[in-house]
């Protein structure tokens, strides 16, 4: 459906290692403008690693990652610095700066990247906090917030610069279903109001099906499937169905390899 548009995120043959161990085994993916792409997978599927590489926090073994037309594996630090203004990230635990108030957290990207005066920056930060329903909480410290509020504050900080790309790591982890549903609504609202391209990493099925335009299913460092919600639901891939139906994996065990591991040979 999106083939006529240029992708804003374009990953080709991404291979990454953690020490000797290969984590991603040649992942290729396109995300189009204004789309909500959910990256789904079980624990150890490589989805969190994939996100960290999309954010340019690590250097891949091989492959390319283009964000907004620029290959971040080739950029120098100044070009990357410029690109960072157009990206927002909300981390799993919020990662709010604990030594600052909520308001100062949201203001930090603005202070870093703009020359606006204090009053303007404060108004802009309050606007973002209002947007995530945290109006009036700007004087509190992060430690005084509940789990759901931390996530929303982190989201406010992520969108402080009105980024074109928004990355969201596990929005519903550790939240009760109601708060989690509110956060999903918020993500949809943001996309519609601010026309962002949003990448969400999650293992929550309900949340994924609710917000996704397309879903990428990762498994053991490979992409199993990229498709719309319907396509993923109707997939006949057994690993996808395991994930959807909460079935335990039944992996066949290679007896020789098993013995070798036990005896440490």
């Amino acid at each position: 459906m999106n083939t006529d548009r240029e992708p804003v995120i374009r990953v080709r043959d991404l291979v990454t290692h953690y020490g000797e161990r290969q984590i991603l085994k040649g992942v290729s993916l396109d995300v189009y403008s204004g789309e909500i792409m959910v990256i789904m997978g079980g624990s150890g599927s490589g989805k969190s690693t994939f996100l960290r590489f999309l954010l340019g926090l690590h250097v891949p073994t091989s492959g390319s990652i283009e964000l907004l037309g620029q290959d971040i594996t080739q950029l120098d630090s100044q070009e990357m610095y410029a690109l960072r203004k157009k990206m927002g990230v909300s981390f799993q635990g919020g990662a709010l700066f604990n030594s600052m108030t909520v308001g100062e957290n949201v203001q930090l990207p603005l202070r870093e990247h703009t020359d606006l005066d204090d009053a303007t920056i404060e108004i802009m930060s309050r606007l973002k906090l209002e947007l995530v329903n945290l109006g009036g909480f700007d004087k509190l410290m992060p430690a005084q917030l509940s789990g759901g509020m931390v996530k929303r504050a982190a989201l406010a900080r992520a969108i402080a610069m009105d980024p074109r790309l928004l990355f969201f790591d596990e929005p519903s982890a550790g939240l009760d279903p109601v708060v989690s549903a509110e956060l999903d609504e918020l993500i949809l609202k943001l996309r519609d109001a601010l026309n962002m391209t949003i990448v969400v990493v999650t293992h929550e099925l309900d949340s994924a099906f609710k917000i996704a335009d397309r879903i990428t299913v990762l498994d053991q460092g490979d992409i199993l499937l990229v498709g719309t919600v319907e396509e993923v639901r109707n997939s006949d891939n057994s690993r996808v169905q395991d994930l959807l139906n909460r079935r335990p994996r039944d992996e066949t065990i290679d007896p020789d390899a098993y013995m070798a591991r036990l005896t440490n040979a």
Partner: protein
Amino acid sequence: MRGVYGLERLGRATVRAVEEIGYLGALLIESLFWLIVGPFRRQPVRIAAVFQQMTQIGVNAVPIALVLAFGVGVMLAIQGIHTMKTFGAESKVVIGIALSVTREFSSLIVGILVAGRSGSAMAARIGTMVVNQEIDALRVIGINPIRYLVAPSLLALSIVLPALTVLADFAALFGGAVYTSMDVGISLAAYAQDTVEVLKVNDVMQGVNKAFVFAILIALIGAGNGFVATGGAEGVGRVTTRSVVMSISAIVMADMMFTFFLTR
């Protein structure tokens, strides 16, 4: 077989140590880079952060530094008088106190105090930020963590530690004077007179220069340990302890080398 194993362990430990020294060196170079080049790239090291650190590391440590230095001065006077009694030259203790305080003990005691107080705080703060993904958050906002966290502390420490050392000089000399005047009966005025006659600018500068080196060691070791924290609160505790032990050891070793080359 055992020998080979021991040799292998020694080799690995050496490689790790060299690696760590290299890492701290890189940290120093990158901090200096941001301090010098940052303003031209519109990514300056914030002056407000430097002053905040100077207050926390320096101003807030003044009372305890004065008390410790005073104690060291009294201690030196007691030991000095006890030793000099053998030669019947108790009044010469003034020279011993004046030189050892300014050249050695002030900077050492202040260095150890600040390593325990602020080096550990730095390791704990950065370690906590690593564990909470706050460092990742800084990086994705486009803020280099070394510019934001290490460079201000490095600058603040290297200003504040020499200043504390000079203050500690006064407190320690005063401590020595008070005890000596009570025990040997030299008046405070005469003691001050003798001290001023003995001391040269060089003696004071030796302590100040040492303090500058200690400041850099404390900042790098504190920050370097913080950045490698892993594994939650326990990991943060581990690197904090490690940073204190490492920086105090580094201070004593550096002091020894300094004294060797400057005194002979």
